[in-house]
């Protein structure tokens, strides 16, 4: 459903992504693994229309979205949990969730989705009226995921979910990802933590200095000598 074909992306003068191709099919969880500075976030932002590639093509549900504005891509049903969460800090938890349901389509089932998100993250219900900036890191991450779910996305992009979270909360959040997958949400998971990511995915891509160097099923990648050394520390 999402196809990235040979994109070259620049930030200013510097080329960040080189001839990159990935694809995600309906109902899959796919991971892109890479170290700091390998271009993971740029990849996510290119799919979301924040950066536009110099060459190559991105299609979503058969429509080309290479040069489309972010808000139009979001309205097509792509939602994201960006790196650093980026919740709306001065708004309440509930208002943050409402913002997630901003597209017209999503507003009509706002009440229902809020209920669904609250059942996934009961702590958000308790904190509904609280100013989002006062939440703890883990709660903010849950809020960011909740906000992304409010539009009932067709494709969910998750950028560095585990960053800065305690192992316990990370586990909880990954538990939720599993639940989401059972509810037929397609997920593209960007991670630094290879063990965690590969345990939860079907397929993975390895991103190194802006290029895809390896791809395969989770099992293949877990068995690969290079990956065991470089990413799993085995």
């Amino acid at each position, binding site marked *: 459903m999402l196809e990235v074909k040979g994109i070259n992306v620049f930030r200013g003068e510097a080329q960040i992504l080189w001839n990159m191709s990935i694809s995600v099919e309906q109902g899959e969880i796919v991971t892109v693994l890479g170290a700091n500075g390998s271009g993971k976030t740029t990849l996510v932002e290119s799919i979301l229309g924040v950066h536009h590639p110099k060459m190559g093509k991105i299609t979503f549900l058969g429509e080309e979205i290479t040069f489309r504005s972010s808000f139009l891509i979001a309205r097509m049903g792509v939602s994201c949990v960006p790196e650093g969460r980026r919740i709306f800090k001065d708004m309440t938890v509930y208002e943050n969730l409402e913002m997630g349901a*901003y597209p017209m389509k999503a507003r009509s089932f706002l009440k229902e989705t809020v209920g669904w998100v609250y059942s996934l993250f009961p702590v958000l219900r308790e904190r509904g009226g609280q100013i989002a900036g006062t939440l703890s890191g883990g709660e903010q991450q849950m809020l960011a995921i909740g906000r992304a779910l409010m*539009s009932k996305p067709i494709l969910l992009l998750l950028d560095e979910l585990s960053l800065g979270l305690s192992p316990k909360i990370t586990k909880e959040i990954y538990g939720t990802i599993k639940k989401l997958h059972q509810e037929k949400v397609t997920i593209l998971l960007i991670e630094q933590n290879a063990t965690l990511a590969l345990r939860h995915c079907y397929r993975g891509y390895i991103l190194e200095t802006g290029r895809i160097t390896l791809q395969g099923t989770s099992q293949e990648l877990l068995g690969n000598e290079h990956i065991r050394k470089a990413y799993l520390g085995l």
Partner: protein
Amino acid sequence: MSEFLMYLTNGIVMGVIHAISAIGVSLIVGIMKVVNFAHGELYIFAGYFSYHLSISLGVPPLLAMPLSVFFIFLVGIGMERTLIRPTYGDEMYSLIITFVLSIVLQNAALLIFGPYPNKPPNLISGATNIFGLYHYGNQRLLSFFISIGILVFIFYLIKKTWFGKSIRAVSQDRGMASLVGVDHYRVNMLSFGLGAALAGTAGVVIAPIFPVTPTGSSAISLTAFVVVVLGGMGSLKGCVVGGLILGMMENLGAAYISTMYRQIFGFIILILVLVFRPWGLFGQKTQ
């Protein structure tokens, strides 16, 4: 005593009008990081529009007011589309453009409307006895209640509606707002229009009390900036409280110290606030 209360009432009436005008500036600064130096000119133009609509064209004054505000709203949208939109990303350009625009509009007002103060007709005449203490002009009371109504409307708009929430989201994180599906170009355009309309509203509300003149516009912009800084950048509540403080200080100061210094009192408070609480009364400290 009753004299003091009357000055105080004057201050409150002026204060809410200051607040409306300042919210117009504050919205535009908060959302677009654009300081609109032409704010005072929009205010003056609205005053002249309502004067000419009702005196020259014979439109009923109560209709002339919203009509003028609507014109100014369209002017604001036009400004954003043509002059401000190409400058996003460089705050210096928009600063220079609105500054130049302020001079151009001020001189245009001089050419079109002439240098004389113009006063639209009163909507209402007579005076009301307030608690048996003093008489207060009905026109001023009406302006006061209209202003309160507008403030309530603005708070409702910003706090409760989808448009208001998208405004707040864009002012906090423009990129993230567009990632949840907010068309930030449209939000910019409409909020610039809204900011202009608020300047216009203050203009039409005050014009029957204090006639507008083209050269008065700079003082109006400055007053609005003082209120915004006083209350704290980006805080609506701050605009209201800042407006009230300034309104009362001006009127009490003019009454008990000297009318000559009316303009100065605002700046004295501003300096004090900047020395002791530089982030304003309700603003947030930023690094």
